[in-house]
């Protein structure tokens, strides 16, 4: 039997959840025995080359590119998992949700204390750049998500337990200490 295939991505996230995947330490050797990786920043495969079994999504959706990638994952993965607070509820990027988008951009590019050398007062608007959304959306408000692993980041233990449960089909172990929102 061929190994289950895993894909991962980071949308509007900080890569902390991916760091937490790597935090399973030497069990990563067991993991590559158990699964094969496809599109993921871990192996740097940029596009899906085949149908995957599990897609791990870090980060919520803050721009049009995030939506595109998330829909691509839904199409190419049988099971999608929201990994971490940002994927589940928008997380820290969603702190901007109460602020009008114009104000955010002006603060970032024109008026903020760290702004330097923008003499022409340009807010980036190249066609190549993804459009920012009106607010940051949790992934499950864009596509169907099958499972959720909370945490900022989710502990390596939680990610490991979830992956093993998904691959083996056994019930997932959820000790109290591993499910945390921070």
């Amino acid at each position: 039997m061929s190994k289950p295939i895993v894909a991962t991505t980071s949308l509007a996230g900080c890569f902390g959840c991916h760091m937490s995947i790597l935090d399973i330490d030497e069990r990563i050797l067991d993991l590559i025995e158990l699964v094969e990786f496809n599109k993921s920043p871990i192996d740097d495969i940029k596009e899906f080359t085949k149908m995957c079994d599990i897609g791990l999504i870090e980060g919520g959706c803050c721009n049009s590119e995030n939506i595109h990638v998330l829909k691509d994952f839904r199409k190419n993965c049988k099971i999608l998992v929201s990994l971490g607070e940002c994927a589940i509820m928008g997380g820290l990027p969603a702190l901007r949700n109460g602020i009008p988008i114009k104000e955010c951009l002006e603060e970032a590019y024109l008026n903020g204390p760290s702004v330097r050398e923008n003499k022409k007062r340009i807010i980036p608007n190249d066609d190549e750049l993804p459009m920012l959304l009106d607010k940051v959306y949790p992934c499950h408000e864009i596509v169907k998500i099958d499972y959720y692993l909370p945490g900022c980041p989710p502990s390596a233990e939680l990610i490991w337990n979830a992956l093993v449960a998904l691959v083996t089909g056994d019930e997932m172990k959820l000790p109290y200490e591993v499910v945390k929102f921070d």
Partner: protein
Amino acid sequence: MSTLIKFKIDGVECMAETGAYVVEAAVENGIFIPTLCNIKGVKPRGSCRVCTVLVNGRPMSACTTPVASGMEVENNIAELNDIRKAIIEALFVEGNHFCPSCEKSGNCELQALAYRFQMMVPRFPFDFPVRDIDASNPKIIKDHNRCILCKRCIRAIKTEDGKSVFAFKKRGRQLEINVDPDLGELFTDELAAKAAEICPVGAILLREKGYEIPIGQRKFDKEPIGSDIEKK
């Protein structure tokens, strides 16, 4: 002298003094009924409904219902736990609860209940309401984003002559709890600390303090809320 009466919680024979509320009586018998708006020593309000139990088959808030002889209370059953979980989830989507950036995280009762009920994601869509932070008081910060309107502060934080320092303002979806500007000026360090302590979430914070207890040693890091009661 008060007399002892017998009643049952989930079929377990319990004893309590006449007039005790179901929540308190359960604690005396080593049984945890989850609560959120209730605080020991202050008149119960029954506003959050997290403590909903079935009393002789009918839903009642356990914090406001006194025990009666022969009463049959159902508490830890799937139907009730799902309703309680739904209330917690509704509170998470109704405000702006960013646990990773909250000073109260790890000591927050709303979060602790979500842990206890293993909330992985709220079943309701997120609202992301636009709310202010009131930092006008010299001793505390009132963050409306995190307030769940449980009225604990209104009921428990009083001046020496019995006036409430906190009060409701506005109505409906705009309803918020505010500090009385004049009485708030008179906050002693002790009263401000009590207000921050009594707030179940991170809506009342002490100024110039935060993240004092390291992760791993906070109130609900190791054991679920209510496990101290169940160990008795």
